[in-house]
């Protein structure tokens, strides 16, 4: 099978390639939806070509204006956001954003959000065949919109149904992005695998809240928001590990990843690839730094491939 966007392994170059269903990536590092705009924002500050894949801001059928400000607030080692999935809508995305993204020659995964199964299906149909679209990430887990998002993300039957509906109308791999705001992540992961997902990415943000004591009011206009950043990493690691116990499709780990070390921990826990999110705001080069760091690690540890790390967690010392 051919690897897309391949630069290795040439002589002496470490093998960083990983597979997400039929999608083959030059390395396991992607940018998390909603934290990397439409990629052009970062072109002055990093080498976009070094990314395993770019995942763009969530797209809905119709344009969405988003929530009133304040939309973000910093919390301990993290942040809360209530952007409300502001986006230009799928049609403008295809005409205005996709040509640039296609030109990057890096796999582009489009994150989609719908208010109903029919909407998810319609967005996917419109993206089918658009040059450059290498995968679809189905967001059933955004805490910041009333309809859609959360309802699908919390109910295994609905999550599976959305997955199946999207799968039916597209030819590229489908990644389903899970919400951590559930009682049993294993049940959700299993359900979307059964629904036909090619891969599962996790986690989206944790529902949270911050209060301004002086003003005695919530910090966010939306009252609640999604928690992201280093603060959520332990939760995300556990959920990736849990999911890896029940599914056989590749997992993509997300949550507080800032460095190669963070990324490799997720791979040990069972992730085939990772996404860098909030870290992009702090260090616009974060995702590139993670790629470089993984490369160094694979060289230093003399691994045949970074794939050796996937699910390599040692549990044998536990008696």
């Amino acid at each position, binding site marked *: 099978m051919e690897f897309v966007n391949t630069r290795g392994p040439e002589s002496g170059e470490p093998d960083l390639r990983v597979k997400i269903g039929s999608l083959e990536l030059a390395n396991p590092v992607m940018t998390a939806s*909603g*934290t*990397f*705009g439409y990629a052009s*924002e*970062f072109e*002055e*500050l990093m080498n976009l070509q070094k990314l395993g894949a770019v995942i763009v*801001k969530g797209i809905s059928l119709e344009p969405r*204006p*988003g*929530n*009133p*400000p*304040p*939309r*973000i*607030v*910093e919390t*301990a*080692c*993290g*942040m809360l*956001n209530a*952007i409300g999935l*502001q986006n230009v809508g799928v049609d403008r995305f295809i005409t205005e954003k996709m040509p640039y993204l296609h030109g990057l020659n890096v796999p582009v995964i489009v994150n989609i959000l719908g208010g109903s199964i029919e909407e998810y299906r319609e967005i996917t149909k419109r993206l089918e065949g658009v040059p450059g679209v290498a995968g679809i990430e189905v967001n059933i887990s955004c805490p910041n919109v009333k309809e859609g998002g959360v309802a699908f993300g919390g109910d295994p039957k609905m999550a599976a149904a959305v997955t199946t509906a999207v799968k039916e109308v597209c030819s590229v791999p489908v990644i389903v992005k899970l919400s951590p705001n559930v009682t049993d992540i294993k049940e959700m992961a299993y359900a979307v695998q059964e629904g036909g997902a090619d891969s599962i990415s996790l986690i989206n943000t944790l529902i949270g809240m911050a209060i301004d004591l002086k003003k005695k009011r919530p910090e966010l206009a939306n009252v609640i928001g999604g928690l992201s*950043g*280093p603060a959520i990493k332990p939760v995300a690691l556990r959920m990736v590990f849990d999911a890896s116990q029940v599914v056989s499709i590749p997992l993509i780990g997300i949550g507080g990843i*800032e460095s190669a070390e963070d990324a490799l921990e997720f791979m040990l826990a069972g992730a085939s690839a990772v996404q860098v999110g*909030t870290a*992009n*705001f*702090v*260090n*616009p*080069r974060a995702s590139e730094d993670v790629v470089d760091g993984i490369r160094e690690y694979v060289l230093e540890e003399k691994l045949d491939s970074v794939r050796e790390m996937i699910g390599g967690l040692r549990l044998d010392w536990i008696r």
Partner: protein
Amino acid sequence: MPQYQEKTIVTRVEHLSDENVRLTLKAPQIASACKPGQFVMIRAALGKDPLLRRPFSIHQADSSGHIQVYFKIVGRGTDLLAHLKVGEEVSVLGPLGKAFTIDKDRPVCLVGGGLGIAPMLYLAKEISRSKTGSTNGDLVILGGRTKGEVEPVMADFDEIGIRTLATTDDGSYGTKGFVTELLKSSDLPANTQVYACGPEPMMGAVSLWCEEQKLACQVSVESVMACGMGACLGCSRPVGDGKYVHVCLDGPVFDARELKWNS
């Protein structure tokens, strides 16, 4: 637009008052590319807490590769920055955002309130540099709550040679009262370009008055920011009809008429 994530070196820390600090950084790349009205995002800590960078307008930039920010200590990030020592390294991202538009043939009036004074020094310098004719009709009005906010920077403005007036809320320096009162009594020529930066109510009042007087007015506004570069969509500001602009990309400098002011 060139943008850099630069490791800068602290070359000077000035505590202008209990709360107000001026930081000089050796930042050759940013200094060579920036314009008045643009801002930078500064990382206050090396670790994970506080996590996000903090936005500051560029107070001055020079040809020897230095930039300055002038800020007020309001929380943890600014407190950490205030305790930096000469020689320490800080990560700065910039220049970001839209700059002020300068028309070298028009008289100008610059209005800075509180820490809104910060971008005005750089702007005043660029205006005086770009003007070939007289700056006699030009005016700078600086206002603060007390003396400490205004007095320490007066000498820098005086050097430029544009007439500069000061006001303080408590009358401890300059005339007592608000900048808007001075502005209204200052009899500006009809084609004056007004520039304003300061607290929201002040900018609202200035822009309203400019609209009545049919004077062009550019304002520099603030918003909570995570990325400063258009990636997070966090820095939204309503412009009416359920629409938003993003302060880091569409601004921070706007034509005052583009924005919605709560009066």
